[in-house]
């Protein structure tokens, strides 16, 4: 009788532990996520519904901050600059990254070294990259000016012209982040099955036919993931602009991240800045969801 009770007790304890153990194991991670992710997000949402003066909340304003954004010419300009920047940079990075990945798929002498060299830009700290590009672009002592003057030309003014500064920023981003595209796409290409390609070769398909009918369609999911990841990342670009142009000349390179940073920290409009970042977060989320849905539709078809 006593043995039976003991056995039941052990069974119960075992069942209880079985139930509790996963939660106990999850608890530390969950606490960290709550503390560093969920709470700040919640606090940001709360702040976005308040008006701040001199660093402190002074009134609840509901959705007014969100409404005000759409009549703020500076916000709209920053949003437009960001959209242009992301679209141009990510497109170029995707095309170049794909081209490089296709090239580096071939095995030849020195290919391992080439693959390593190609990913170097993305491992350099973004601030350092921006400083180096500043030294290249500067009109007074920049490398491009020195080169131009050596060839009989004048000072190259990249950072003083809105269009050139914007293009200069895109070039920096493409230089730094094409390697990420290259790496993801190379891994995707290397994981493709060989059989369809061998069959196509037997059927006498040319390089373009193979690319258009096999490589590209099969790579579409990988390409979509790479583009979504880079797009989300590019929306948050900050350090390079902060060092290179601070958003100028005028507002030509003022990305939403710079405007949000200035609004929050320099102008101390914490609530308004929170509304701005929540809005941008939602825009990026919507983009990501659309891309994923598109991807699923492509897969299904």
């Amino acid at each position: 009788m006593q043995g039976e009770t003991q056995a039941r007790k052990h069974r119960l304890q075992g069942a209880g532990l079985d139930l509790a153990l996963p939660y106990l194991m999850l608890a530390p991670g969950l606490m960290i996520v709550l503390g560093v992710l969920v709470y700040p997000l919640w606090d940001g949402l709360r702040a976005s519904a308040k008006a701040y003066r001199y660093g402190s909340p002074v009134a609840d304003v509901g959705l007014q901050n969100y409404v005000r954004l759409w009549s703020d010419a500076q916000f709209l300009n920053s949003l437009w600059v960001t959209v242009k920047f992301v679209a141009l940079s990510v497109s170029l990075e995707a095309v170049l990254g794909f081209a490089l990945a296709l090239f580096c798929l071939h095995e030849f002498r020195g290919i391992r070294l080439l693959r390593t060299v190609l990913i170097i830009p993305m491992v350099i700290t973004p601030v350092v990259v921006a400083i180096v590009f500043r030294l290249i672009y500067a009109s007074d002592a920049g490398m491009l000016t020195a080169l131009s003057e050596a060839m009989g030309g004048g000072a190259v003014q990249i950072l003083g012209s809105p269009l050139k500064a914007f293009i200069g920023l895109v070039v920096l981003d493409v230089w730094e982040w094409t390697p990420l595209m290259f790496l993801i796409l190379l891994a995707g290409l290397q994981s493709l099955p060989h059989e369809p390609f061998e069959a196509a070769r037997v059927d006498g398909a040319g390089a373009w036919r193979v690319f258009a009918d096999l490589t590209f369609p099969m790579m579409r999911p990988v390409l979509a993931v790479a583009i979504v990841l880079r797009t989300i990342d590019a929306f948050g670009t900050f350090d390079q602009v902060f060092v290179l142009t601070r958003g100028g000349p005028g507002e030509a390179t003022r990305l939403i991240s710079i405007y949000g940073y200035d609004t929050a920290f320099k102008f101390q409009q914490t609530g308004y800045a929170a509304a701005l970042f929540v809005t941008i977060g939602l825009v990026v989320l919507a983009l990501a969801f659309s891309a994923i849905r598109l991807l699923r539709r492509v897969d299904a078809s």
Partner: protein
Amino acid sequence: MMHSSRLTRRSVIKGGLVLALATTALTTLGLPLPARAAGKKVIIGAFADGGLTPFKEKIIPLAKEQGFDIEFLEDEYGVTLEKWFADAHSGAGQYDLYLLDDPWVPQFGAANVLEDLGAGGIDGADKDWIGSMIDMGYWPPQQGPRVKGFENAKPTLICVPFVGDLQTLTYRNDVFTGGAPKTWDEVIAKGKEGVAAGKIKYPVVFRGVSGNPIVTSWYPIFLSFGGSFFDDKWNPIFNSAEGKASADFFVGTMKQNAPSGVVEFDSDQEGAAILGGEAGAIIQYSGNALKADDPAQTKVAGKLDFGVVPKQEKAIAQMGIFIAGVPKSAPNKANSIEFLKWYVSAETQAKLSEAGSIPVKRSAFGIAKPGNRLIPVALQQLDAGALPRPRTPDWAKVEELLGIELNKALQAGSGGGAALDTAAKQVKDYLTTAGYY
């Protein structure tokens, strides 16, 4: 008999709990707590600027002789305001003393995060202060318009002037052979002669980058043309006829006589242009001016002289002093105030003047051997006229709006007056939203 030790869930949980408790106990009890500042420790936060070099090189060692243990933490100008404001507002207590740029005083004052230094025993009424400098340490300001919410508040001394920086003219004495040019027309005309003679490449140089840099460069021209920024109700009036004339002159004539890339110039580039011997004249703060006699830092040592800023109507410069505030969260508050009392004493200010920095007490201008020939010129400029920027906590935003429009006009090389109209409307809209009217 073989003894088998099985790893059970219970033993894992028990072991984990014991480990967690032991780690907590060790970290909270067994290990020493982070060392807190003791004695006369003072942690000073400053932004990197050549104007503080004499303080760092000559005054900090003197402070150490007085028993102060100074920790001097420098940051880039562009990040200090937000960093220190967050420190003060959150009560983090990372600093004992901030060396602020004076337009930031209203932001810190309105947020009520700085100590009352008058209550700490620093005498703001001491006649030896340069009046316009000590005035900048009060919040709300003793003179001029006040922002809403502070109309009836008693002015409190929350900051004390630290280095008396202000704009003066630096010019090439081999180009302007008759001494400092008195008017802007003279600057341009003689500068062009210097270019023709091959002595310099450009008559003038200035900062053209959006925001604070371009506004700082335009401001003395604006003042010298007779412009005023706000009326006593905070209405922007900088787009008056005088203001527009100054902006047109700045983005037109000045640009045509400056390096071609001036739109992207900040203090590094303008400093390189004057110290490298390419530019004929510049209006600048003391940071680069202090390098004018050092052959290691300039190619034209001996050829750079200082003067009062040129005038159109008046010879007025912008004041932009380093000003010290003690956060309420300072870990070594008493030491900071004691340090400030020592630092602003007539004796220490005389040492600062000897070290080559512009002092904040009038008596220190009169010492027998000031350490830099800029110092007497700075006093001349103070007497001729030097004005601070408007005392509003929203100056950063105002400067940003104006700076963007001025920069756009500078890119175009024309339309300065129209840029001021656009900026005035934007400023008015912004201040309306901020509840100024």
